[in-house]
């Protein structure tokens, strides 16, 4: 797999920070849970539709098989998506503000200028607490991107980001 195809940005190209490796299980889990569930539902629906046409197999077995098969496929896709999401999430803090780059197939690079930060949230679920991770949410006054989040950051990084961006708010208000 190629590392990263994005053209380097002219400002500072080297300091895009990846997420810590211990965040990977959380991404895998997050991706897998949703995709398994939706795979299961899809399997149920398809099996129920199919069971009216196929008489050779008993209905219950067909439904179970459908759910199992699709849930498994969903889980596999979910794991793969989670892996990609983890690998292609980067963040950067520079003089201008916070930048977050996410996705590979669908690339989104969001910048929140430091002067536009309204307030910050640091969220930590039970899994994140065990692995010293945190999700940082940066709020702006905007409409569509009113909340920009960086999931599963290293706790120290997250606190550093929060403090640095937060200090700016104090300075602006003086």
């Amino acid at each position, binding site marked *: 797999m190629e590392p990263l195809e994005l*053209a380097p*940005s*002219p*400002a500072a190209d080297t300091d895009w920070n990846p997420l810590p490796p211990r965040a990977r299980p959380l991404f895998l889990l997050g991706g897998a849970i949703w995709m398994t569930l939706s795979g299961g539902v899809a399997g149920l629906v398809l099996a129920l539709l199919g069971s009216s046409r196929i008489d050779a197999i008993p209905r219950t077995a067909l439904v179970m098989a459908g759910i199992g098969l699709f849930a498994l496929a969903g889980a596999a896709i979910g794991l793969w998506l989670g892996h990609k999401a983890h690998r292609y999430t980067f963040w950067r803090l520079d*003089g*201008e*503000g916070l930048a977050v780059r996410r996705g590979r*197939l*669908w*690339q*989104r*690079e*969001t*910048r*929140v*200028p*430091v*002067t*536009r930060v309204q307030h910050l949230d640091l969220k930590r679920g039970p899994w994140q607490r065990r692995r010293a991770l945190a999700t940082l949410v940066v709020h*702006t*006054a*905007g*409409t*569509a*991107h*009113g909340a*920009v989040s960086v999931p599963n950051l290293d706790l120290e990084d997250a606190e550093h980001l929060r403090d640095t961006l937060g200090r700016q708010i104090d300075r*602006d208000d003086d």
Partner: protein
Amino acid sequence: MTTDPEAAPQQVTAGDADHRLHPMSWLFVTVQYIKAFIVPLVVVVVFGRRGEGMHELWGLLGVVGLVGASLWRYWTYRYGVVGDALVVRSGRLERSLRVIPFARIHNVGLEQNLLHRLFGVAEVRLESAGGQKPEAEMRVLKLADALALEALIRHRGQAADAGADQAMASATPLLHLPAGEIVRLGLISNRGMVVVAAAVAAVFQFGGGNLIEDYAEQSARHALGWANGHQLGTGEYAFAAITLLLVLLALVRLLSVLLALLQFFGFTLSEHGRRLTVERGLLARWRTSASRRRIQAWTLRETLLHRLFRRRSLEVDTAVSQQGQQQRALRDVAPVATPGVCDALIDHLLPKGDWTALHWQSVPDVAWWRLFLPALMWNALLTAIVCSGFGRWGLLLLLWLPWSAFKARQHARRIGYALGSELVAVREGWWSRHWRFAEIDKLQALQLVRSPVDRHFGTATLRLDTAGAHATAPPLRIRFLPESEARELLARLSQELRRRPLRW
């Protein structure tokens, strides 16, 4: 209403809130409750048609309680002015004291419906940025008191904001729409259609489905009977159908004009120092005012009908509470005006923006292909479906493609963006055109998006976010930019934003 503890300075006491609402205010609060209450009641009684007893009417007992609550509210509500802030006290058992600095108030709305006008009173709403509810809602004040409060907020808010420019405090009308223009607005806008759609939806919603079906069946039978009696040919039928359609369309347009007159009659946009005030309405009157620099983004629209009448319309976004009804926020700066007047208004309101002198740039030629692509895919899908049903005749659908391509080309030719020293602007559309722009100061987050298709063509989309963007407003985004150009723009804008602190 809750207390905002951090906003309350120590020296403010409950005694400072020494003004009362209008003595008749209980009546208006009650009327409002009843309105919210009586419409569902009527719907249930009229459309429910259950017939057994009148148990739906038990709810009326609640109205008595509401009158009591309204009276209680009148007795416990006081407001007053301390320095540059408004103090509102409410409640007796659970007391709250709210202090609202004038400089924080983004929008002041005065509303007078017919009943209000009869009593010479008005409803006042004070809104700050964001939030779910207005900062203060006064139901109701004597009109003179309401206007005095508005003027006070204007003067003091400004003094706190940006120093004095009291010299310009007298009102200068910027735009006044005579009745003829309002009629044009009604003809151009689709208000009538919206109302008809909403009414049809409502009737179906409340179980009136039978009503419509019965009526349709009856009229169909009538028509058939009439037609049988007259022995008409196909031509006559077509003529009748077309006439009927035209009459219906005319009626909807008439409704549009009527609604436009109700909402916009006597539209006057005026400028008091740094504040813009809009006054409008035929039966109910609205008066809204907001500071010029509270405007977050601008939308200039020109549909086909607009062009037919040589008009455009200009709207603005202000960052006020989302929940508040559209009627109340300052939104239409020029509901309908000639292109020249619109440009002059923008130049006047954004003197540093250089709107008319912006240097527009187009996007690469490949954009038309990108616009055409979705149409091509849909057309292929549709053709395949129709062909499987009707055979080869389905291929006729492909004739739509040249038109699609032509449309995409025209659209792509007109896409453009401009980055001035103070303003960033985007224009799009061919049949229906729009310009969307905002001051660079008002931008919030920036986002660069590349879809798989973008990556194939080496392009990117730059999305610029502003506060208070209305759901129906077109997005402020530049599509189909070459990636290097998009990145350069992104870098430039984020540097600019770093330099400029956010000024609400």
